[in-house]
């Protein structure tokens, strides 16, 4: 274990899983959204729902959606900041039985009309797992630049995506494939060692058979 996992991180309390982890889940969702969020429905499950209020979990999730990091002093005021920025936030309960006890389903609406559904789990310390995107398996940690491609389950789509990465000289650290059933909706998750250029992602979006491309960057957006 890294020295700064023992002494650190610097974070707003009180809980690494219920506060710091929640901020990271919110921020990951905001990055996946890629456009300004105007509406968010946050449905807390398990221990997030049961003890979330006392741990500041709702505030932490919203702080993340606003682009804050776990050490941001403004986390306790995030609900007020969101309201000032005209973001409509609604809280509720979800019963995500198959997920980790600390999990949340976020339904987000963007300024350009994009709708995104993310299930995030806080899995210990302040480590997180993005478990699902738009109902399909995802399972990535947010430690790497990550490409999430929704496509129809037909031959050749994986080659298209990995071909693009190869042309760009981008190394794949881990790759996972899921599908609802043969020939139905499929998703590929690619965790990469380098950032993927924006125009490559736009090219991917236009390819035949590719339904939706979501990109998680490690870089901080200028404006969310």
């Amino acid at each position: 274990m890294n020295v700064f996992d023992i002494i650190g991180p610097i974070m707003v309390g009180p809980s690494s899983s219920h506060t710091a982890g929640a901020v990271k889940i919110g921020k990951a969702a905001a990055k996946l959204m890629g456009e300004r969020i105007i509406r968010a429905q946050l449905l807390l499950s398990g221990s997030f729902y049961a003890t979330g209020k006392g741990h500041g979990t709702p505030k932490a999730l919203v702080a993340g959606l606003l682009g804050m990091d776990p050490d941001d002093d403004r986390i306790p005021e995030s609900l007020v900041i969101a309201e000032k920025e005209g973001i409509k936030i609604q809280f509720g309960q979800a019963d995500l039985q198959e997920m980790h006890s600390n999990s949340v389903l976020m339904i987000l609406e963007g300024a350009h009309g994009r709708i995104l559904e993310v299930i995030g789990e806080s899995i210990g310390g302040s480590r997180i797992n993005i478990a699902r995107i738009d109902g399909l398996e995802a399972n990535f940690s947010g430690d790497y630049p990550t490409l999430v491609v929704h496509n129809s389950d037909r031959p050749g789509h994986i080659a298209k995506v990995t071909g693009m990465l190869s042309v760009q000289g981008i190394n794949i650290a881990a790759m996972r494939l899921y599908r609802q059933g043969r020939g139905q909706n499929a998703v590929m998750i690619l965790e990469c060692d380098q950032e993927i250029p924006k125009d490559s992602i736009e090219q991917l979006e236009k390819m035949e058979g590719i339904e939706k491309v979501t990109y998680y960057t490690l870089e901080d957006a200028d404006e969310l």
Partner: protein
Amino acid sequence: MNYKTLQELVSLAQSEEKEFWEIVVKEEAISQNTQSELVFEQMRKMYQAMKRSVDQYDPNLKSPSGMSGGDGERMRRYRMNNEPIAGDFLSKIMETAIMVAESNACMKKIVAAPTAGSCGVLPAVLLVFEAEKGFREDRIIEALFVAAGIGQIIALNASISGAVGGCQAEIGSASAMSAGSVAYLEGGDMEDILHAATLALKNLLGLACDPVAGLVEVPCIKRNVSGAINAVVSAQMALAGIRSVIPPDEVIGAMAAIGREMPVCLKETGTGGLAATKTAKIIAGSLA
């Protein structure tokens, strides 16, 4: 990291003729692929954040549950206006521990060390040693690497998570780490460092994690005080030449075993022990 036990860390230091903390810095630099100086400066940032967490203590804050806040100020006033029974030095450590732990409960910025729930122990000890005994900041940073090395080995062979090992893994680890750093600051050798940490850990073996309403407040905040004081007294025993009969790495193994055998209701689930008392249930009910 090139060591898995305390004994291996000490052997490395002896064979390379380096100090305990220097090995921790060096191994971290290798794993981050960076220079030792940069790792040292990274730790300085952690220490400065600890200092800020004390400087920015606000006695008027209350935690979202309403259970915590203001006790650090109560401790400070008692020390100022009375002849404190624990003496001035230990009293300052007590109030610093409670201030940082309360700030955490009140959603202020802290440094997890090793966890947020145990964030008051190390700063309480180190800040007061720096202020009252005139240590240079660099030497305090060295002591933080001593603490980090001990924490790494506990994390590897046992746990630093209340959900896995109970409170012994959080306050126990923080106290052991702090005891080792105190032994180092006071000029102890590596044997003293190891036994200071070990005696501190032994004193807290078996401690359950049974927080009221599942929140990092009761009994966590006040346990930061006892963890900090336990660190100082354990270090003093080691500096006096007192040794743990059970060797350091075996004590860490015992802690792991106790954690495994501890029932789930005592491992951060908020369902057993203090959390299952009549009053705790009333509090939890009022927060739902």
